[in-house]
């Protein structure tokens, strides 16, 4: 967590220093006027310049030294401490230039004029070197973790790509857990993330376009898609929407999600997010577009349809019958998570005749001592549960265990014992809570929110209120689109072909088409007739 934080905050000082020290007065914004600013041939002047820009940036390191053969040629290294691979800086740059170059050079004389060329071609043992004359590039490079080498007498900086910072290693996905399937999840480094994608899809058609967002943070954003499968219109729409973002900082993909959503006033997510590379790869293969953001392990994919709330990557790895069964279970859970408390309120306070007589008597007995109306009771318990859930997430891990036991005891046992809450209410709340975890997390956030207005409606108009709420919700869902695709597809509008991957998950040999509205550019994903069968007997 600490590393993560430091890295995100690192570029911040730019915005601050700009105000305090404009080197020549017109350097007031990070990306505009400096484009005309070029390096000078005088290394001292350049260094002064940079020192002015990086004033009070204690983590920027300047290292001046002399070239091995030509002692009068001065070199300077500028890099950010902690963002570069320090061993590379000392071994491959400083050692190579200050010591070893003397042994390696042939008879050609190194002059001030050809020093840059020699340094680049013969001296540096760095795999990726860029040249730039622009001051802005130098600043960017330093802040991104590259090492900048200035050579006296040249107005060109060599930007060595030897970024290397402390970063989290690739670990198991924490939010989407599977039993069968790849474990790895994205990390905070964009390059690592794209490399994970590339490792899954070894195809030049996997395009990863990068751009920078955030005037202050300069966050790298990658837009990934598979050319030939994706709908070109979708890519340009995504790029267009990204292009109109003008914000000081992008610290997480959530910033982008809210800025490019189709329906900003909806509680339902129309862009999916995941930290699983396999999920992103699967989405790309279906014709979707992924947006990866540097500094967060969470990638966005779009378009996102409602049906995806009940789909998990594991469905596609586990055998199809089991996966279909689990899907049905998830649909039921989704329904329960959304409506169970309101159904309970509606039945207990309006439609008692729906309960079988013995159950009614038993609930009546439980409720006899409860001082609140059932709506208030259920509402309090739901809120209490949300508090416990929030506590569970925020609490320091060692404390969490203890607190959850206390919460379970107090809310579960003591409240019932004291006659403050009916046992049935506890069961309802607990079941609702469990059910809400079975569906896709972002989807369940919407359900969590909507549960309360539905409870209110149910307390107000009984089942009719509940149904009214559901109708409004469905009408709203029907009006949503995610990047042009109707949100409720393939159910409404019905797309028969896509129902294979909805409440059931057909075997892979049957799902030979990509989702119709997303992959229509290249509908077929496998050859027809792949259903395995025993070899046909030959007729004699």
């Amino acid at each position, binding site marked *: 967590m600490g590393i993560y934080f430091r890295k995100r905050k690192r570029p911040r000082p730019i915005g601050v220093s700009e105000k305090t020290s404009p080197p020549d007065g017109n350097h007031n914004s990070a990306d505009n006027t400096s484009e005309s600013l070029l390096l000078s041939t005088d290394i001292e002047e350049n260094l002064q310049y940079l020192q002015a820009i990086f004033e009070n940036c204690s983590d920027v390191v300047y290292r001046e030294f002399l070239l091995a053969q030509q002692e009068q040629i001065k070199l300077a290294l500028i890099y950010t401490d902690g963002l570069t691979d320090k061993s590379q800086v000392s071994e491959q740059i400083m050692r190579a230039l200050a010591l070893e170059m003397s042994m390696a050079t042939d008879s050609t004389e190194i002059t001030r004029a050809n020093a840059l060329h020699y340094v680049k071609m013969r001296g540096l043992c760095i795999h990726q070197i860029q040249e730039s004359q622009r001051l802005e590039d130098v600043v960017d490079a330093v802040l991104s973790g590259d090492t900048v080498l200035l050579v006296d007498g040249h107005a060109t900086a060599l930007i060595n790509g030897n970024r290397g910072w402390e970063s989290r290693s690739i670990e198991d996905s924490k939010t989407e857990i599977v039993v069968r399937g790849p474990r790895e999840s994205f990390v905070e480094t964009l390059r690592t993330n794209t490399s994970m994608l590339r490792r899954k899809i070894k195809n030049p058609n996997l395009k990863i376009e990068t751009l920078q967002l955030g005037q202050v943070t300069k966050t790298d954003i990658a837009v990934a898609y598979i050319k030939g499968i994706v709908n070109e219109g979708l890519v340009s729409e995504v790029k267009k929407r990204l292009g109109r973002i003008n914000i000081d900082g992008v610290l997480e993909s959530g910033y982008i999600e809210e800025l490019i959503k189709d329906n900003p006033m909806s509680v339902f997510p129309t862009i999916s997010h995941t930290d699983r590379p396999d999920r992103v790869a699967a989405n790309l293969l279906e014709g979707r577009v992924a947006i990866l953001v540097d500094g967060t392990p969470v990638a966005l994919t779009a378009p996102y349809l409602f049906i995806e709330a009940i789909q998990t990557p594991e469905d596609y790895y586990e055998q199809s019958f089991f996966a279909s069964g689990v899907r049905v279970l998830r649909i039921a859970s989704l329904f329960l998570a959304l409506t169970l408390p309101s159904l309970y309120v509606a039945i*207990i306070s*309006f439609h*008692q005749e729906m309960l079988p007589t013995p159950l009614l008597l038993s609930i*009546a007995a439980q409720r*006899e001592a*409860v001082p609140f109306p*059932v709506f208030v009771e259920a509402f309090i318990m739901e809120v209490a549960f949300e508090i416990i859930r929030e506590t569970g997430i925020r609490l320091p891990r060692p404390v969490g265990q203890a607190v959850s036991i206390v919460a379970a005891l107090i809310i579960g046992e003591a409240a019932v014992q004291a006659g403050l809450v009916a046992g049935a209410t506890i069961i309802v709340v607990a079941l609702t809570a469990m059910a809400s975890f079975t569906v896709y997390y972002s989807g369940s956030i919407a359900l969590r929110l909507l549960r309360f207005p539905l409870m209110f409606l149910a307390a107000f108009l*009984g089942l009719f209120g509940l149904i009214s709420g559901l109708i409004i919700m469905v009408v709203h869902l029907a009006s949503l689109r995610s990047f042009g695709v109707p949100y409720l597809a393939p159910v409404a509008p019905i797309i028969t072909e896509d129902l294979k991957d909805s409440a059931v998950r057909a075997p892979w040999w049957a799902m030979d088409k990509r989702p119709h509205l997303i992959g229509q550019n290249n509908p077929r994903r496998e050859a027809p007739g792949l259903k395995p069968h025993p070899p046909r007997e030959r007729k004699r």
Partner: protein
Amino acid sequence: MIKKIICFLLICALVLPLEGCWSRRELNELAIVLAAGVDSAPNNKILLTVQIARPSAFGGGGGGQKMAAAQENNVWVISQTGESVFDAQRYLEAKVSRELYWGHTVILVFGEQLARNGIRKAINYFSRSPNTRETIWVLVTRGKAADVLNSHSQLETTSAQSIGNMARAGVGVPVMLKDLSIMLASKGTNPVLPRIELTPSGKPQGPGMQENIPEARGSQQQATLTHAEPTTTGTGVFKDDRLVGWLDMSETRGLLWLKDKMEKGEITIPSPRESGKNISINIIRGNTSVEPFYDGQNVWFDVRMQMDGALLEQQSTEDLTDPRIFASIEKELNRRIEEKARSALEKAQLTYEVDIFGFGEAFHRKYKKEWAVLKDRWNEVFAGADVNIAVQARIRRTGLTTNRISKER
């Protein structure tokens, strides 16, 4: 947008105070009526008795089920006179602190006197009000309905549920409110209702289980030391909406046969070879078809009954593998079934002169023109009609043994 949200919140805020005034009924503000009884009272009034569940006596609430729920009286039985059922209910609410809730009423019992005067005036509230259900079991009792309600069940939590379960299991001739309405509406049949009575059944199992059974109701209204369990003891026969008489349990079986409602039951016949010993057969399936005939003057009916049964008890020792013996048992069975049907038929035709079997319906289906003429005096026509009964009983199984095992020495 902000304006819209404010408007919405305002509407919600305005609506909030109204909440709770409407159809909302909190569970602990309801008096759950499990059974209702209607008796006639002086001055053409009716006496409404209700059995209300007392949830606090069911345990729960304080955590953990109280096992000896029967110790405490878990129902409250209370009566009230009124001009009509609804009127009496209204008066009741002056005594009962909660709103009477009819959605879970299991049984409706008519007292004998009211039934003899006609049940129409008591039944309408129950079939019209959306609160009560058409699936209420309707019964009639000898004596007062209030006494039947004032009882306990040893097995079920309340006597109402006990009676309901019996009716659901098909003891006697179970009648739902909707069946009663259909029977009352039809000219081709007359209603029957099962008769429920309290019969002494051993010692009370706890202090709350003592009842006033009619036999014990002598000088003082005091609880006796006999437990009385509600029991189905026969059938009440109605002419239109008036009770005219009773059928006992055996005749009730005949009634079920003739109404084609025989679903399960048992028939005991004397052994064909050994006198004084009996054979009992369990009825697996019973089927009756009634065909009316009319030649312009006389009406007669051909009734064909079929039965599949399983021999489950044999006191005698005859060899069941012998086809001749088997045939004679089946023949005896035929005779026995016909006898039961005849006994019910005779009661209906001769004693009460009402068609309680739905023969009129059958006639209506076949002779729709003639029906228009006969329907208003159908009971007379029925009383004079000949009925031919043909029974074909088959024993399909003999349980787990063929002959008595004890016979083989």
